[in-house]
């Protein structure tokens, strides 16, 4: 298969995954914040087609789970209570992409059915994973986009102008690499009014991280620009009277494109995972909103790690996305042999 067709497949798959997350409300059976206090840490329910009497059901069903007396998190399947699953049902209201209000869900049942189990508040994990993807991917895309665009501008400027401007910009970049950003984040969260809606507050934090992360990509871009500037086709273009703007636009920035895209593919997952650390510091997405970061953050707790295997599922859900991004990255990298070296040597 050619690189091009692989690229197309990769982009299509990624697009489909993102569309799924964007339509989380439809695929998720419940509101991600609804608590079912009778069922904390309920394990996933299996869908059955065969009942206990070997009767075949065309409509899948699940058995009800009842908590064992005296226990907090142990459940028994009650084979006597059959919950049939229905498709295209009306349920909790939601908005598609934050605009279109709908109530239609892919499936539902009279009694809650937890296909992927529940968390410590008895919230449906499947719904949380789907809705969590919205916040996390948005954060990842915004953060990576911001970091890269600032990095690109500053790196290109430093590399292209050279001289003292380059010197100053690179010193500032080093400064940005060395600073303790946690402080800034604390300060920022503290100055933010409390009334800011949680998603906005979190996205603001992401914007700040994105804005301060430019130093690394800037150094990479600068490295490429420095070498691209010395290329003969750039000299030749100058030789027939091209202006700086023309050179940057037509020759130099295109050289950085692959590196920037590659970086983007790596940075998006990194920003999503960074939220785990942010949650650790209390700067992540606050309750009751789900995000992949705070879903994963519950794995930090030893008891969750050893007692409830289904709490690993959010990590599993992230795998296709991140692998998609990485494959995309390596495909893009593969299509730009010439620029690889500069990526690595950009630090000098």
């Amino acid at each position, binding site marked *: 298969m050619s690189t091009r067709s692989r690229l197309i497949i990769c982009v299509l798959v990624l697009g489909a995954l993102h569309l799924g997350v964007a339509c989380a409300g439809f695929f998720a059976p419940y509101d991600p914040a609804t608590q079912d*206090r009778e069922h*904390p840490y309920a394990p996933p329910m299996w869908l059955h087609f065969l009942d206990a009497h070997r009767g075949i059901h065309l409509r899948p069903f699940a058995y009800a789970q009842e908590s064992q007396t005296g226990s907090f998190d142990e459940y028994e399947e009650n084979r006597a209570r059959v919950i049939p699953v229905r498709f295209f049902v009306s349920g909790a209201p939601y908005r598609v992409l934050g605009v279109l209000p709908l109530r239609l869900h892919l499936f539902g049942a009279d009694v809650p059915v937890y296909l992927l189990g529940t968390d410590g*508040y008895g919230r449906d994990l499947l719904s949380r994973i789907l809705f969590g993807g919205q916040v996390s991917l948005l954060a990842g895309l915004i953060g990576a986009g911001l970091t890269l665009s600032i990095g690109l501008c500053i790196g290109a400027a430093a590399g292209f102008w050279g001289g003292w401007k380059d010197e100053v910009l690179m010193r500032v970049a080093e400064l940005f690499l060395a600073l303790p950003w946690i402080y800034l984040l604390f300060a920022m969260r503290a100055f933010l009014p409390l009334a800011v809606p949680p998603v906005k507050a979190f996205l603001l934090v992401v914007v700040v991280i994105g804005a301060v992360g430019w130093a690394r990509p800037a150094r990479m871009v600068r490295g490429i620009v420095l070498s691209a500037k010395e290329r003969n086709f750039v000299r030749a273009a100058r030789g027939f009277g091209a202006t700086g703007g023309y050179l940057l636009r037509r020759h130099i920035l295109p050289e950085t494109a692959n590196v920037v895209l590659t970086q983007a593919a790596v940075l998006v997952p990194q920003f999503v995972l960074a939220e785990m650390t942010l949650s650790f510091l*209390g700067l992540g997405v606050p309750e009751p909103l789900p995000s992949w970061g705070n879903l994963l953050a519950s794995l930090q*707790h030893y008891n969750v790690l050893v007692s409830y295997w289904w709490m690993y599922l959010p990590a599993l859900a992230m795998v296709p996305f991140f692998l998609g991004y990485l494959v995309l990255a390596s495909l893009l990298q593969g299509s730009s042999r010439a620029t690889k070296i500069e990526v690595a040597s950009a630090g000098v």
Partner: protein
Amino acid sequence: MSELRAKSAQMGAVVALVAILGCSLFVGRAKSFPPQHSVPAGEKEEIVRVAGEGGRRGGRIVIALKAEPKTLNPLTAADTPSREVISTMQGDLVHINRATQLTEPALAKSWKISPDGLQYTLTLRQGLKFSDGRPVDMEDVLFTFRVYLDEAVHATQRDLLIIDGKPITVRKVDAQTVVFQLAKPYGVGERMFDSWSILPRHLLETTYKEGKLAQSGALGTAANQWAGLGPFRLKEYVAGQRLVLERNPYYWKTDEQGNRLPYLDEIVFLFVPSADAQVLRFQSGETDMISRLGAENFSVLSRQARDYTMADAGPGLEYNFLFFNLNELGEKAPAEMVRKQGWFRSENFRQAVSLAIDREAIVRLVYQGRGAALWGPVTPGNPRWANAAIRYPGRSLDKSRQLLAGAGFRLTNDEIGGPKLVDAEGKPVEFSIITSSSNADRAKMAALIQDDLKQVGMRVQVVPLELRSLIDRVTQTKEYDTCVLGIASFDADPNSDLNVWLSSGGMHLWNPSQKHAATNWEAEIDRLMEQQLTATNTVERKKLYDRVQEILVEHHPMIFLASPDILVGAKKGIGNFHPAVLEPYVLWNVEQLYQRNGAENARR
């Protein structure tokens, strides 16, 4: 639930059995440890004989601390790890038994309170020696209190020695007798002498005169430069890793058989920063005891219990609560804040919030049933002071809605997110709860409350803040709506929370450090607290404090939520393991702890 109750009651009974029987005289010197500085001829060594299971000598106990202790100096220690370590290295004149919660003679063998309650005469035990073998005399006691009272030293507990604005004065009567003179009667009585470590004058006087006393006792202090009157003394400190204490051969207690305590040769404090890592260490057998366990980790350990015992000591003294920002708003306060405070100041509103909160769910989901729902400030872990008449009436959304309707709020319907509560002006009731991001339990409580209040139409945002930012908002900038916090009292006595209930107190969280009480009921609490402070009769004090609790429940400045059980664990091989609900939970009787299987322990 009731089963748990019964269990904790049993535990209490066990603990009570270990109560001391009093002091008896033990004449003569310790046989195996000849002191370096001999006791003057004719002076006898008065030793405390402790009741309880007799143990065997030798061995070591390893226990994890969540952070490095910051200092060994009892004057400046303010953090929990330091206090825990210091409590095993230092002795006090009169000690509160952590299990019975009653006082018992310690370095002072007896005390007498004058009828007017102003004079405390304490008799010092004879023949006491510091852990470096130097004898203790009255000068040490005088030096200790001079230092604690010296403003330049900044001892953290100094304020406890200031009664009615005047410091306690200390006067030596003879070599064994000292008199403490108070300006006003003090209700706590001899309890106030607990935790005042008697300091070694011979080691500290020079530094004190140089004005550097606060800096001494740093962790790197050489073992021979530090001494105390506790069962253990400093042996070694490895930065970032561990603190090792060794047996104090001059300790002034023996067991019933007359064997000098403590039994253990060594106690090792490992620094393990995360709670989960502590569990791992305990489970893998690298530490011998674990305390301050969360309920989740407790059940994991219980489920997999192999060679250790897990114990639920019942509810502790920690009470968690939600409070509203009732501070006086300045002229420049934003209109939004003024409106919100309009709601918060309404007692019906506060009570409606309280009624809407499902405390049983908090106990079940946050503490996995290992805790108690709270309606008032005194937990079931403090039976002596709790007002038995105050009971949690249970959650009632209907009553809550009625109260809100009565206060002019009404419900409207919103397409997404269910019913919405609006105030008399039609503004939606929306506010935020701040919690400490480092405390998972309280964050979980806030999330549950958020969902509870959604049932009555209130839209609440939970904002986890890192602890310093939270404290800054609550005590300094006062920019917040509501907050979930918890307080763990040091002692069962109401005076330990004086700062919380007095309107002038710095921890009167909803409106701290008031010049004059802002409301009548706060004024009444002030009066009652002052009265109980100086009442000398416990029954009377209890009556006064009961009334304080009633007022708090009536007016809901704080909405009390739940109190967690004290959850601990220890290896099966550890003898005399009897956790208490007062700090230090497992080390309060450290001198009596022992390793049943000495040989196995030595190999490790």
